[in-house]
């Protein structure tokens, strides 16, 4: 199925419904503070079981795009970012809305999201096949070094301490090891428990870490109430002149978003921060940023949607997710026995076409839905969390049971929900944990296959140029934040 067929498939009954429902749910969850697009993706995993892999990809990709986009509604109108990636949008979106132009602020954000997403789609369809061809020549050592680099990159670039990020990733790897070892067929780390022979279910762990932990965190804020909104969204449609005036900002922020998206494991939040900072630094009027300035809204919203296309490139070509949310999408593909990587283009071309077509189509649907219904979506904030949170836990239980019907998986999910909640409280990023969990089997299989071919020697890791390059980047990305911290402490005088 080529790209044209991918689009044609999308306009048939079932897939079109999945596209609309997925985008709508993504926008709603993205707009609501607390639950993130990642949690929605995790929650949707079990329900894609009965679907074909193509339909599953359509639902999840549209949720992914909707989730990234919806955050701007509440960020702009209430200064409450529904998604972490919309935090930067609050800096200028909220002052503009507060200053009497909520429609204009929303219009800028929604249009920038659409164009950023569309430009990243161009990058996706042009870069992905080329990258896949390049990756076909990678051997086991290159693949192992690539996974290592992905883990270090996400730890180094995610929010907070690089050491904690790396520990989170390695913890995810440890969680993936129990069960039957793929290479030797031996049981490993089962501690004598029969239930552990199959290992921890990915689905249960991801549901726990992303959805249950989020419910536990949200429960603390159950009594939060929101002020009523001004229903006027006058000025939500932009003129061609508006688009032309922002053209350079849009292209620059899109390039930043796509590029950061391609970096393994780095999410949309970093894209919007970097694009905003660059726009501010290059502006002739940097003092206007943070006061309701149009360039700020456009930079942030273009970049976070451009990140989605970028994040999908390494996911489908290398099997390395470009963001934590993309890692859940990757888990969904693995559940359908679709192995992302360079061979995906030849083994499952229909999945690639569906993903690419959905990425663009869901941006267009998102634009239409958000222009038409942003105030209605924002009003969902008034629904008490007390009504919603119990349902989410029940849905998670159903999700954990859907895979194997084992109560052990439900207990696993609750356990990892508590673990995820505690990790969040300790400011430990969860993104590296999920990426470590998903990539560990690939890293181990590749390393051991390589070692079998080299009679147990690790030398190919430094003798093969691409593997060496990945290793050097890993070392650099690990050492650099620590070195920077060391220098900063040396320069800061000790308190008296």
């Amino acid at each position, binding site marked *: 199925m080529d790209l044209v067929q991918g689009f044609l498939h999308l306009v048939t009954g079932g897939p079109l419904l999945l596209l609309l429902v997925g985008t709508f749910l993504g926008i709603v969850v993205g707009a609501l503070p607390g639950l993130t697009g990642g949690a929605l993706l995790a929650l949707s995993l079990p329900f894609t079981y009965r679907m074909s892999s193509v339909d599953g990809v359509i639902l999840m990709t549209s949720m992914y795009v909707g989730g990234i986009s919806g955050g701007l509604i509440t960020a702009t109108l*209430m200064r*409450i970012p529904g998604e972490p990636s919309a935090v930067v949008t609050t800096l200028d979106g909220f002052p503009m809305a507060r200053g009497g132009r909520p429609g204009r602020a929303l219009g800028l954000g929604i249009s920038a999201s659409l164009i950023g997403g569309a430009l990243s789609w161009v990058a996706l369809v042009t870069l992905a096949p080329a990258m896949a061809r390049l990756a076909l020549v990678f051997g086991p050592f290159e693949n192992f070094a690539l996974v290592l680099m992905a883990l270090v990159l996400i730890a180094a670039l995610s929010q907070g301490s690089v050491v904690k990020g790396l520990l989170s990733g390695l913890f995810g790897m440890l969680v993936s090891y129990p069960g039957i070892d793929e290479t030797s067929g031996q049981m490993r780390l089962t501690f004598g428990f029969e239930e552990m022979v199959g290992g921890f279910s990915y689905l249960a762990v991801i549901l726990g870490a992303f959805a249950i932990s989020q419910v536990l965190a949200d429960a603390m804020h159950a009594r939060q109430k929101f002020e009523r909104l001004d229903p006027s969204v006058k000025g939500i449609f932009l003129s061609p002149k508006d688009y032309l005036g922002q053209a350079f900002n849009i292209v620059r922020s899109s390039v930043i978003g796509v590029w950061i998206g391609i970096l393994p494991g780095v999410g949309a939040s970093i894209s919007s921060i970097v694009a905003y900072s660059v726009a501010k630094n290059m502006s002739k009027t940097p003092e206007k940023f943070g006061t309701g300035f149009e360039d700020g809204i456009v930079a942030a919203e273009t970049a976070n949607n451009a990140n989605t296309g970028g994040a999908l490139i390494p996911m489908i070509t290398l099997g390395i997710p470009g963001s934590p949310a993309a890692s859940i999408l990757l888990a969904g593909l693995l559940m359908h026995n679709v192995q992302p990587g360079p061979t995906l283009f030849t083994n499952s071309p229909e999945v690639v076409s569906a993903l690419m077509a959905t990425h663009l189509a869901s941006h267009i649907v998102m634009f239409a839905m958000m222009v038409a219904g942003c105030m209605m979506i924002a009003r969902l904030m008034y629904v008490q969390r*007390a009504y919603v*949170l119990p349902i989410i836990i029940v849905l998670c239980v159903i999700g954990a049971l859907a895979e194997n019907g084992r109560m052990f998986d439900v207990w696993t999910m609750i356990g990892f929900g508590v673990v995820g909640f505690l990790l969040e*409280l300790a400011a430990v990023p969860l993104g590296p944990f999920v990426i470590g969990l998903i990539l560990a089997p690939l890293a181990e299989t590749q390393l051991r296959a390589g070692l079998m071919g080299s009679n147990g020697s690790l030398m190919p890791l430094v003798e093969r140029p691409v593997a060496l390059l990945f290793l050097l980047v890993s070392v650099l990305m690990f050492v650099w934040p620590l070195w920077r911290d060391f220098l900063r402490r040396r320069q800061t005088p000790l308190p008296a």
Partner: protein
Amino acid sequence: MSGPSVTEEPKSARADALFALAMMAVALLTMWGVRNQPRAPYDPVGAAAVPFWTAVAVLALASVLLVRVLLKHSTRGAAMSLFTMSEAVDDSYAVVPRFSVYAVVLSLFYVALIPLAGFAAASVLFMLVFGAALCDRTPRSLAIVAVVALLGGVGLDYGFRALLIDLP
């Protein structure tokens, strides 16, 4: 751009220390778990090697984290600052940490109850109790919680059985 406040520092240091100790415990458990793993003749490293060396890396990094806490070096990165600056502080409502504890305890009871009472009954009861604990306890809210619990519990049970998902 402001960093974490002075009062936050001891709290985060304590959390970091606990995290490091927990990671050390997981690493040691992994090392102990793979200690007697046999090695296949064709496999140069065996099934124990990767978990073992991952655990070693965890031990090393957790030690680094612990040492940084003991030396009172901040473990918070510079990337935090923009988020800290831009987050809206909404003090119009009380954050209630005990609700998270309720969520954990009630979820555990719920999961334990499923094999005994069946999915539908356990779900209705769970949604009723958890919803009532979280809501603002006005008669209207309690009535909505009850309706949501009844319709949600029974509806989800029927809906997912129709989708051939085997619920207890």
